[in-house]
């Protein structure tokens, strides 16, 4: 949902991260996979933080992962986030191994627990910016 009055911090893509943000705008989660050690890395950067090699290629991810850590924010960091309180900020561990921070939506905030399987969806928050967010995977027993 695009808000006309979006006052939350927006990411400014860099030459490192442009393919990631362009992927989000297309509705696809893409990350760099190191050509030497094969690990996916987040956040995007020129060299592998694991083996330090500088060659990588961008690959699409499944978009699935699990909640590694979660918290429900009750006191927003700024007035821009106040209307959303309470909301989930979580660290998601993607299937492919990389971890990222995001929000988990589509369920009561208190129901989000460590280990919960989630999948990505894309939130077009501003004309040029789409943020990857997560929701519980449906039909989990």
């Amino acid at each position: 949902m695009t808000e006309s009055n979006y006052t939350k911090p927006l990411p400014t893509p860099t030459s490192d991260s442009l393919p990631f943000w362009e992927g989000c705008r297309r509705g696809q989660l893409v990350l760099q996979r190191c050509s030497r050690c094969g690990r996916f890395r987040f956040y995007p950067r020129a060299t592998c933080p694991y083996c330090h090699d500088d060659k990588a290629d961008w690959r699409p991810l499944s978009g699935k992962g699990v909640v590694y850590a979660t918290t429900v924010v009750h006191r927003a960091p700024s007035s821009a986030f106040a209307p959303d309180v309470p909301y989930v900020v979580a660290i998601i561990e993607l299937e492919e191994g990389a971890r990222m921070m995001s929000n988990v939506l589509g369920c009561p905030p208190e129901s989000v627990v460590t280990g919960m399987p989630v999948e990505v969806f894309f939130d077009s928050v501003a004309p040029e910016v789409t943020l990857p967010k997560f929701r519980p995977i449906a039909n989990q027993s």
Partner: protein
Amino acid sequence: MGRGLFDGKIAIVGVGETRVGALPDTSSLQLHAEATTAALADAGLGLADVDGVLTAGSRLDGFLMHSAAYAEYLGIVPRYGATLSLGGAVHCAAIHHAATAIMTGLANVVLVASGDNLLSGMSRTKAVEHLSQAGAGHPEFENPYGPPIPALYALIASRYMHLYGAQPEHLAAVAVTMREHAARNPNAQYRKPLTVNDVLASKIVSTPLHVLDCSPISDGGGALIVTSAKRAADLPRHPVFLLGAGESHTGEHVSAMPDFTSSAAQSSGAQAFGSAGLGRDSVDVAMLYDSFTIAVLLQLEDLGFCGKGEAGPFVAAGGLRLNGDLPTNTHGGCLSHGHPGKPGGIFHLIEAVHQLRGEAGQRQVPNAKIVLVHGSGGALATHCTLLLGA
């Protein structure tokens, strides 16, 4: 002493501190200066003796070269100076830097000073907003999702509790003990005793952290004077010696933290104990960086005082109290003595000196000979461990 790299060669010879709390009509540099004047008087030295200056910057003053701006304010021309930036690890790291400068002859007398009027300098709302914009999280990959600073620690607390079964009462016990110590400290900001129920009844900031799991916002300043043991021998106070030090920094951002429940304090602590040639059971008093209650539990484990997952019960059973197995933050910590932001950890160092000199009054731990001081910044991302001895 005669151990390791520092080998009894480096001494803290003076400490000074302002009151902590609401100090309107002060400025950041005034707080630096008040603490500096007190520290120099304590050391029996003058500004003319100082040839090195280390500061930690300010959340309010936007100087480009803070330590140089402070030297300018004081009217001295140091031959060694830097503005350090490591979050809550900065003051321990400053002592580490001062020690290496003195050992290598870059400076003889180093002033470490820090002060800020984070409470009175801006409204509480603005302070919270400012702290968030100033780098609560990564501007591109974290801040768009709205984590306030407590959320970064809350994420760590959440995973820790999930993995080890720690309870909210374990975290609350840290806050209760800090307040107990602050009650004996006339300089502390918050002194009214707390119970575990009080902590759990306080509003949730970001689950599982309540308001009383988080340190307050304060005004205040502190300073220390570091010199060689040789120089210290001519000065009036009993020196406090640097026995060992270690640093380890995994980064800045919580989403890049390799392991949420084991921090690089494991490495900094091992280095400090190794360089001092000391074991954990030699520590009489600990000063741990308590911006949030969860940080204390993780430091207790990562520094080797408790096994993984065991710090909660240790604290709940009174382990950190003055008569406990590891008296900790005898001044009340950031949680109750106060947290002026950048200066937060300087008071842990100053209290360590008070304990080792036997001048901690009602908070004195009998026969305190070895004190560990640990500083940590980010969300358990930067770490510096010092061992100090009488």
